[in-house]
């Protein structure tokens, strides 16, 4: 990887490689049909073809490659969750990101700069202590830091000493970082298509033909295809698509909004997040300040932004870094997120024998792209859910074994 980059950098003509083939004709049947060509679907296709010898795979994408939430997220990668099951899962997510550029032979620009979550109240600080202890116990780098340390980590922060939003301390997560979201999807797509996976863009899944407890075929806007196994990985449309197979998921759709400022000189090294202000910031490698926050206040299938949410994000950002007040916004957008009641994903089996779920990724699923792809591929290939994924089964809602991660997801990243 580094050698190839060096060669490319020294070349005269910067050769462009067409890594992802144009959409081919649909075949009558595939061993595995993956619904949704976002990061998750593509990662699963990569793992199926590279590690399990299954290359009769079609990824069916209704729009363009990775144009859903993979294109819209703010790229926070971290493992400082609350439940042991959650931490163990996201820890593997971070570890896979650490080696992802090598794995894909594609620079995903993983930048492990650390994430600092701020506490403005004693109650938040107490919750940080329990998160830090659980994190350390499971081998992640997470610790509670005091005011002095916060100032050292991010000298430009407004500490608001004596004010209503005084920063009392923080949760410092050295494993946290970011990666380039598009590169992650493209890297997986390029690898998968090199091994025979077909990526069908502008092809919409419109229904499933279910016979008994199996999906017999998938109805698409370009025709019907027979399938061995089916994976649903359609991001914000997971509820809608699963319902086509008669599976009603405990999911509600909420828009999540984000925005970026004009590029600035590098000044913000770490990722900074405030639970109380529902705002988080990260400086991208282009210098733009990416600003995200909490979900919209009510259910909606719409990717339109609203002025009040954008004002709220701006308010939080300017409170933390007052000198941002004169900086202009460059772009703003929203994505539809598939929110679960406990803020944890739904992975594994469905009530149908050959239909698998990679759903409920809500506002937190980008970081899980490699691990979900790897583990869902293993699940499909072996027909058995690995231990790491078992706690995330759909049945947990029937057995009341929820994995409550709300407190680690209040600022949605």
């Amino acid at each position, binding site marked *: 990887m580094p050698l190839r980059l060096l060669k490319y950098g020294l070349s005269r003509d910067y050769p462009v490689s067409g890594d992802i083939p144009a959409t081919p004709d649909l075949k009558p049947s595939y061993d595995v049909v993956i619904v949704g060509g976002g990061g998750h679907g593509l990662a699963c296709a990569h793992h199926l073809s590279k590690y399990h010898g299954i290359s009769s795979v079609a990824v069916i994408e209704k729009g363009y490659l990775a144009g859903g939430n993979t294109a819209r997220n703010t790229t926070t990668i971290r493992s400082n969750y609350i439940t042991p099951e959650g931490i163990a899962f996201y820890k593997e997510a971070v570890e896979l990101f650490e080696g992802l550029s090598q794995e894909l032979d594609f620079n995903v620009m993983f930048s492990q700069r650390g994430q600092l979550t701020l506490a403005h109240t004693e109650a938040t600080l107490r919750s940080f202590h329990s998160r830090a202890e659980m994190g350390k116990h499971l081998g992640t780098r997470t610790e509670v830091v005091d005011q002095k340390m916060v100032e050292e980590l991010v000298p430009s922060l407004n500490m608001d000493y004596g004010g209503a939003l005084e920063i009392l301390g923080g949760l410092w997560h050295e494993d946290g970082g970011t990666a380039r979201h598009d590169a992650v999807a493209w890297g997986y797509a390029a690898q998968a298509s090199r091994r025979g996976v077909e990526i069908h863009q502008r092809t919409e899944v419109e229904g499933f033909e279910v016979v008994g407890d199996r999906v017999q075929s998938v109805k698409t806007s370009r025709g019907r295809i027979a399938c061995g196994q089916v994976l649903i990985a359609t991001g914000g449309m997971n509820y809608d698509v699963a319902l086509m197979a008669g599976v009603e998921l*405990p999911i*509600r*759709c909420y828009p999540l909004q984000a925005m970026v400022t004009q590029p600035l000189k590098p000044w913000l090294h770490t990722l900074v997040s405030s639970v109380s202000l529902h705002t988080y910031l990260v400086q991208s490698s282009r210098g733009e300040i990416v600003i995200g926050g909490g979900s919209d*206040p009510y*259910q909606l*299938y719409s990717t*339109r932004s609203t002025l*009040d949410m954008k004002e709220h994000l701006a308010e939080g950002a300017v409170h933390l870094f007052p000198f941002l007040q004169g900086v202009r916004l460059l772009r703003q957008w929203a994505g539809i997120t598939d929110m679960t*009641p406990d803020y944890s994903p739904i992975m594994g089996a469905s009530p149908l024998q050959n239909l698998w779920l990679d759903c409920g990724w809500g506002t937190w699923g980008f970081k899980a792209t490699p691990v979900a792809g790897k583990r869902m591929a293993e699940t499909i290939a072996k027909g058995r859910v690995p231990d790491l994924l078992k706690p995330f089964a759909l049945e947990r*809602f029937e057995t009341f074994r929820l994995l409550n991660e709300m407190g680690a997801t209040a600022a949605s990243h």
Partner: protein
Amino acid sequence: MKILTCPMNGPRNIDEFQSFGPVRAEPDPDRTADADWSRHLFRAENRKGIVVEWWRHVPSNYFFLAERDLVTNEVLRTFDASERWAHP
């Protein structure tokens, strides 16, 4: 700014309201199996289309119902809960 029409207070800034999500059937505690409790607790209407949902006007603490399109976000009407459940 978005306006929502409260059946009691008239048109107000949407910031004054809080959403409480789609109306769900109330299970009978004596006769409900675990699976139905789970359904009641964790599943809510999320189909693309019109939902009937609870809202609260926060300053007056008044709860009412709205019919809203989950795709276009158009509020078709708002009304007092007594219209749906006639009290004896």
